[in-house]
């Protein structure tokens, strides 16, 4: 993937719409992260530790459920969480990039380079 650093105009950052776009990107990133971290805490520290004794009353096949969360389930969920984050952030990055690109074009249209 080519570096995107040169692909966007530096003057873009002075544009209020671009600034709003950057701020929106950060908010969406933090919101996604927070949701995933809640799952992380509930699956690992919650089901694997805090509720493990209670969950052991239930069974998953031959496993007591709390034991399964501590030794198998939490790890699988951790892997899936990072996968979801990478996929969703990739998508968010692309949207963000397209938005900035459009703004950059727009800006160039408003203030064409002197011939």
């Amino acid at each position: 993937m080519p570096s995107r650093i040169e692909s966007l105009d530096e003057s873009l950052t002075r544009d209020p719409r671009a600034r709003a776009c950057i701020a929106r990107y950060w908010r969406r990133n933090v919101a996604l992260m927070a949701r995933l971290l809640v799952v992380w805490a509930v699956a690992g520290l919650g089901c694997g530790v805090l509720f493990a004794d209670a969950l052991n009353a239930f069974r998953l096949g031959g496993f007591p459920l709390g034991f399964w969360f501590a030794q198998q389930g939490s790890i699988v969920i951790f892997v899936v969480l990072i996968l979801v984050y990478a996929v969703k952030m990739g998508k968010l990055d692309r949207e963000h990039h397209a938005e900035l690109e459009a703004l950059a074009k727009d800006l160039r249209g408003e203030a064409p380079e002197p011939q």
Partner: protein
Amino acid sequence: MSIKAWTFFFVGLSFSLYLFIAWRSRVRDTLGFYVAGRDVPAFANGMATAADWMSAASFISMAGIISFMGYAGGVYLMGWTGGYVLLALLLAPYLRKFGHFTVPDFVGDRYESNVARLVAVLCAIFVSFTYVAGQMRGVGIVFSRFLEVDITVGVMIGMAIVFVYATLGGMKGITWTQVAQYWVLITAFLIPAIAISIKLTGHALPQVGMGSSLLGESLPLLDKLDQIHADLGFASYTQAFVGRWDKINVFCTALALMLGTAGLPHVIVRFYTVKTVDAARWSGFWALFFIALLYLTAPATAAFARYYMIDSLHEKRADELPSWFENWSQTGLVMWLDDGDGRLQYHGGDQSERNELFHSGKLSSAEVAELRAQHATWLSTDGQGGVDGRKQLRELGLSGPDRDIIVLATPEMAGLASWIIALMAAGGLAAALSTASGLLLVISSSVAHDVYYRVLRPDATEAQRLRVGRTVIGLAVVVAGLFGIFPPAYVSQVVAFAFGLAAASFFPVLTLGIFSKRVSKFPAVAGMITGIGFTGTYILGSVYGGMSNWCFGIGPQGIGTVGMLLNFAVTLGLTPFFPAPSAKIQRMVDAIREPEGVGPAVDIEAAIDH
């Protein structure tokens, strides 16, 4: 071919491969030396991170620890994988965007303070050295167990190999050898696990086999194990919070291991080696994916081997004992001291007085021979003369087999061919060497980059910096090797605590540096010092000073969690009283949050090659 011949073959083959890769990936500049030229693909970086992460302890000891701990063993499984979620979501993409070469680089630049930089350097060096000493020792132990060479010779062979590929190729050489080492170690780990799963349960997937019943029985394996444990006096295998591992300790230890994982410098620097922010996120995924292949299998191996070991030893006469028991008895990992009835009894907990199964621990072979002789006299004279060896060993805390036997003897338990056993040796060496090299690079970059170049000689040329980097890594290999040959007594205890210290120092300072633009130099340094100070004192006091676990009964392994909370509390509490960071730093934080590189501070990108 004998096991020994096969072992020489596999070890020789894998070492030649590492040297070949080292030669192919030698480097000429610091960018290559410290961050592998920043063009490692995410998939390969994930594999290298997994090998970097999984040490000799993960490979040889972890399944054994779980096997003897049951449910509470999940602390290590969750702790050492859950940290990757924090790493991938909270740190990796931003530190990659920041660029540079090391963790102290970020701390020093973000907080505009060489004091912060040096505190970070000290933490990085301390954590890395305690860790690397254990790896070098691991190399020596694998050599001595499988090839019957002296531990010292084993450590020196390992040192020579790491020396060559680390000084030649720096991070680039280390990365590509780690990729190869991952394949060696995962193959060696999975084959015996799958074989023993098929043998006991008929399922090829150990994770499924663990939850099924034994062949020819209706009771699930884990229930059977609970039943056996109850009969023999051991604590339940699946029940949570038995004995020392109460809820608060399981919770704090798991969390401290997670936060520590996210703060370990040798793992973080791996994310500097990829091309883009997106690739840093994907590296996080691939790293945990490849780690999970081993971490999801280890608890299954633990349960199978636990059952199989008890089933094939308990109540057996000498002529009924399996051959692996004989083989490993010679190493002292298991020993049997009979009570006179000619049948081996394996007990624990409140029935431990009847236990006849022990390991020799740190006793020398002469001491063991003497003890056995005394025990024989004791038996033949009906307790009139000699000494009851069982009582002595019990008092020395050497009851039961050595935990390492679980992984080392699994291939034989599963009845696999001798070349698989040899492959285990190559796997153990791969795990130890890959972790050692990653840590050595952190030590080298901390000294050569953060101290020499960033603080002492900012005007050093590229060639000088590369030369210093190579020299330091060479010296670090030698020091680590010496630690391996003459292990300081504290190492084995301190390794687990390295996580507590990393959790209490790096984790808060890194996350706040990214997610707050308000936190500045003084509160951050004060927080770091409070975190390390509290955690370090508590650990030292509790391990050496005989201090009671006064802080809610939390043991030294979990105290990093409290240290981390204190660090956050001090930093955030002091922040309102100190000025915000300069405009330049605020722009820098904006820039690392912005993957497109259009953040207001483009100058930080220009600073990469400084």
